[in-house]
């Protein structure tokens, strides 16, 4: 067991940190305020393989291991969580399911465009009455010759406002929803497919989270991912990968807030001393550092298990649960270290504080993660 980062992982971190600090840091406040996804930065990320971090090289990806992917998302999120979210979702639940479950034709057709960033991917399971309960999907797919006619509304779709390819979960037979849930790859511009209003959210404001509408949307069979009824299997596999993405995103937010708190505590003077000289602040910093470190080890462990080819649902759920709850604690504490200024938009920590909360909610709430973890615990042979 080696806890030292290898040379490659150090270089990935250094490289993405430089990019994030140069390109995103100067605009992170403004794009949050204006709820604007910076397409001009996304265009620069494409040729650097940020949208195909783990896609095979033959499709224009970087074919990296999961820890490299995790470090890249962590470093983007450390500066701008909304862009980190875009990259995380695109790679983990946009591209990865097509790589794992798509036919050769589907992969040839979509993966090069996704890996280059020409297409931005989205994943649409959640509906008004289906969130934690993935079996409650009401979007309906009716077979019509060699096509499917799809009707329904998806909500809270990350990247929804700009997605070029969305994975849409729909049920073919409401008498047997679990056995007939299916995933369709629907392209922007397809008749009957449209984007709703951009949500006005507490955090992650630069990401265009939106509804997606499907009104008699005719989708050829060639855009069905896997078989009819594979939906839950695909969904669970995608969410396992996605949870690593959200875990590292939370980790990045916490690291960003922590770095800001350390810097501020050395600069801010009270009673003629930097506040870092007070034991209370030192205790806060020590707790934050310890939690962040523990979170990082959990998420890298989940990555290593994933790359070994073994099941990693429980490890990914533990990493996601711990990282996200840790991020809300750490960002809260970082605001506290900043005092009144931390509550002001003049400093970044209030943005980190708002951004952190949703990591406990999306891609499976903390309650769902505990469900996954406890199932794994109770199913172990004793």
């Amino acid at each position, binding site marked *: 067991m080696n806890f030292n980062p290898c*040379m490659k992982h150090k270089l990935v971190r*250094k*490289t993405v940190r430089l990019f994030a600090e140069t390109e995103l840091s100067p605009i992170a406040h403004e794009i949050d305020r204006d709820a604007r996804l910076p397409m001009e930065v996304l265009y*620069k990320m494409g040729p650097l393989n*940020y949208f195909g971090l783990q896609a095979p090289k033959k499709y224009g990806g970087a074919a*990296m291991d999961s820890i490299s992917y995790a470090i890249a998302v962590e470093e983007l999120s450390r500066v701008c969580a909304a862009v980190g979210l875009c990259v995380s979702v695109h790679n983990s639940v946009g591209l990865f399911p097509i790589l794992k479950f798509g036919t050769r034709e589907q992969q040839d057709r979509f993966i090069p465009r996704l890996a280059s960033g020409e297409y931005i991917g989205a994943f649409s399971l959640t509906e008004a009455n289906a969130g934690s309960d993935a079996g409650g999907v009401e979007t309906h797919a009716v077979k019509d010759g060699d096509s499917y006619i799809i009707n329904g509304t998806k909500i809270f779709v990350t990247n929804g406002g700009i997605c070029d390819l969305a994975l849409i979960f729909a049920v073919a037979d409401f008498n047997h929803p679990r056995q007939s849930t299916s995933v369709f790859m629907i392209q922007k511009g397809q008749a009957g497919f449209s984007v709703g209003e951009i949500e006005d959210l507490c955090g992650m404001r630069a990401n265009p989270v939106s509804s997606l509408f499907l009104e008699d949307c005719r989708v050829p069979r060639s855009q069905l991912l896997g078989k009819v009824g594979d939906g839950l299997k695909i969904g669970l596999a995608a969410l396992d990968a996605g949870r690593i993405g959200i875990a590292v995103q939370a980790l990045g937010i916490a690291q960003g807030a922590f770095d800001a708190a350390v810097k501020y505590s050395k600069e801010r003077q009270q009673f003629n001393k930097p506040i870092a000289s007070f034991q209370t602040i030192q205790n806060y910093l020590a707790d934050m550092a310890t939690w962040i470190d523990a979170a990082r080890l959990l998420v890298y462990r989940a990555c290593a298990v994933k790359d070994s080819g073994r099941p990693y649902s429980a490890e990914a759920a533990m990493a996601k649960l711990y990282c996200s709850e840790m991020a809300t604690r750490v960002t809260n504490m970082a605001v506290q270290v900043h005092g009144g200024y931390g509550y002001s938009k003049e400093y970044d920590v209030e943005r980190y504080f708002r951004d952190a909360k949703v990591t406990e909610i999306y891609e499976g709430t903390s309650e769902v993660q505990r469900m996954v973890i406890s199932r794994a615990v109770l199913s172990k042979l004793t």
Partner: protein
Amino acid sequence: MSDILKLVVCIKQVPAVSELPWDAATGTLKRDLAEGMINPACKHALEAALQLKERHGGRIVVFTMGPPMAEEVLREAMAMGADQGVLLTDRAMAGADTSVTSFTLARAVAGVCPDFDLVMCGNRTIDSETAQVGPQLAEELKIPGAANVHQLTLSGKILRLERLSDNFLETLEMDLPGLVTISTREYFPRYVSMEGIQDTFDKGTILSLGAKDLGLDINLLGSKASPTRILDVYSPTAKKNNVVLKGSPKKIVEELFTRFGDKIGGVIRKDIKKADT
């Protein structure tokens, strides 16, 4: 000049922080305390080499001298697009001053890439600021050298280059093989792609050479052979020294020009005393 352009870029790993503690006993930086990075000007030199390669074809070999961890900067250079890395690492090479560093680099370049066309270095490093290694390396290799260059154009065997020198823009031509040191004025380094990083670890090769591999006598290397001795190292501090001139206005002005005439004349670009006569 051979058919394919052969470029050598010499880079240095420097600490990636603005302040590092000094070891008072040896007068050197405690480098192990900081993460390393490619010295900024060296990165600009590499970018210039990459642009020459993109325009004219060719091959880039990157050299660095340092501890085994300096492999990091070679990997980064290869992820940016260099073709091969050469790491000069040997305990006997440690503590070399600029003169011995350029001697060692010259022997390595001559040994590994004897038919090079152009050697490129950063114009200076942010950790020692001597700006000496590049010009000394040209001397060691017995080739023409030009320092502080910010623009290069290659046509055939002639390299046309631009540099700022004492506020004049100079355009020079140089026959190859030659050496240039590149400033940070142009050639802003590209971002490293993730595919580039993965490729350099999948298939990039690094040649690691010690004194024995280069056939060098260890008595000619490292701190042992370096004539430079660092007597003291300190952080410069800016000091203000206010002077109040008193007396009649005429006396004050006379006193002002007596004491500060050289500085004031410099500002208005003429010698005030001579202008009076």
